C-alpha cells in the first residue's frame, strides 16, 4: 500500500463502507483503497462507526406500556358508521348551514309545482296517483317505441339469421344468450374487484 496523491471523495468512501456502491463502482473504489493508506483508513473509520451504531441496544418501554396505550384506544366497534359520519357529515356550523340550504333547495320547485297544480284545480291528495300514472304510461310508451324501432331497424332479423347460421338454430341461440347473460355480470364483478385493489399496496416487511 502506498500514499496516493489523489483521494476518493468522502461520499464515495462512506458508500463503500456502507456497501451502497454498484458492483463496478465498488471494484474501482477498492482498487484505489488497496493502494491508498489515507482512503483505507477513512473507510475503516466509517465501518467502525457504522458497526458501533448498529450495536447499540434497543430500549424497552415500561411493562405497563401496552395496557396504557390500549386504555386510550377506541376500538372501531361501530367503525362503518363512524367512518361514514366522519367523511360525510359537515364539521363546522357553516358546513351545516350550507348542507341545510342544499337539502331544502329541491323543495322550492316542488312547492312551486304544487302551487301550480292547485291553481289548475288538482288537489294535493291526487298528485301522487296522477304522477304514478303519468310515469308508468311514459315508461311503457318508451319501451314499446324502442322495441318497435329495434325490430324495424332489421337488427333483430339479422341477429336471428346470423345466430341460426352460427350456432345451429334457436336452441344454440338460446345457449349463447344464457352464456352471454352469465358472462356480463362475471366480467363486471372482475372489473370492480380490479378497480378496488389499492395501487402500490406494500407490506411492511
Amino acid at each position, binding site marked *: 500500500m502506498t500514499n496516493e496523491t489523489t483521494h476518493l471523495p*468522502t*461520499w464515495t468512501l*462512506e458508500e463503500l463502507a456502507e456497501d451502497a456502491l454498484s458492483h463496478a463502482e465498488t471494484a474501482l473504489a477498492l482498487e484505489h483503497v488497496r493502494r491508498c493508506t489515507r482512503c483505507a483508513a477513512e473507510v475503516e*473509520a*466509517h465501518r*467502525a*462507526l*457504522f458497526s*458501533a*451504531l*448498529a*450495536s*447499540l*441496544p*434497543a*430500549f*424497552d*418501554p*415500561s411493562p405497563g*406500556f*401496552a395496557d*396504557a*396505550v*390500549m386504555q*386510550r*384506544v*377506541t*376500538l*372501531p*366497534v361501530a*367503525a362503518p358508521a*363512524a*367512518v361514514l359520519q366522519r367523511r360525510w357529515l359537515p364539521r363546522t356550523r357553516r358546513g351545516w348551514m350550507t348542507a341545510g340550504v342544499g337539502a331544502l333547495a329541491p323543495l322550492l320547485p316542488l312547492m312551486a309545482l304544487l302551487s301550480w297544480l292547485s291553481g289548475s284545480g288538482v288537489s294535493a291528495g291526487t298528485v301522487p296517483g296522477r304522477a304514478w300514472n303519468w310515469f308508468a304510461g311514459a315508461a311503457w310508451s318508451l319501451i314499446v317505441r324502442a322495441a318497435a324501432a329495434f325490430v324495424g331497424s332489421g337488427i333483430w332479423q339479422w341477429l336471428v339469421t346470423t345466430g341460426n347460421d352460427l350456432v345451429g338454430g334457436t336452441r344454440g341461440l338460446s345457449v349463447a344468450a344464457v352464456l352471454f347473460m352469465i358472462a356480463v355480470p362475471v366480467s363486471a364483478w372482475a372489473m370492480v374487484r380490479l378497480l378496488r385493489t*389499492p*395501487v*402500490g*399496496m*406494500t*407490506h*411492511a*416487511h
Partner: protein
Amino acid sequence: MPDGTSELNATTLTDHDLVVRAQKGSEKAYRELLGRYQRPVFSLIYRMVRDREQAEDLAQETFVRVFNNIDRYDPAYKFSSWIFKIATNLTIDWIRRKELPTVSIDGSRYATSSDEIEASTITVESGDENPEQLLVSRELGDQIEDAIGKLRPEYRQAIVLRHIDDRPYEEIAQIMALPLGTVKTYIHRGRKELQEMLAHTRV
C-alpha cells in the same frame, strides 16, 4: 365484537393484514402491532428526547394517534413508515417547544429520589461479555449515546433511523418528509460530527 384473529397466529401476519383486522375491531391485532413496534418506536423517541418518562409519553401518544386513526391508514405506504413519521413529528414538535439539554443516559433528569433514578435508568442488553468487557462496552455505548444526543435533532433522527433502525434512505426521506438528497446530507454531516466527537475513543 369477536376477535378476528382468534383462530389465526397473529405473529405470522403482515403489518397490512394486521391493520385490516384492527380496522375491523380486533384488539389482538392492535396488541400484535404494539408488540412489533413499541421497542423501535420507544428507542427512536428516547434517543431523540433523552428522557425516559417523556419518551414513554410521546411513544404512548404516537400509538394512540395511529390506532385511533387506523381507518385513515394509506396502504400505499409501509405501516412502519407511517408510525415512525407520526413518532418523529410528535418528537420534533416537542423538542422545538422545549429547550433540550443533554443529559446522561443513567436515569431521568426529572428523578428526585434514588428509587426514581433506579426506575428511570435504561437497562441495556448484554451479550456473553465478562464484567470488564461489559464495563468498557457500556462506557463506549454511553459515549456514543451522548454523542448522538449532542447532534442537531434532524441529524440525530436521520442517523438513528439509518444506522440503528437500519431503514433505507428512501424510507427515511418519506418519514422525515424531506428530499432524498437532504436526508443524505443530514446523515453525512451527522456521521462527520459523530466521528469528531468520538475521535478520542476507539470508535
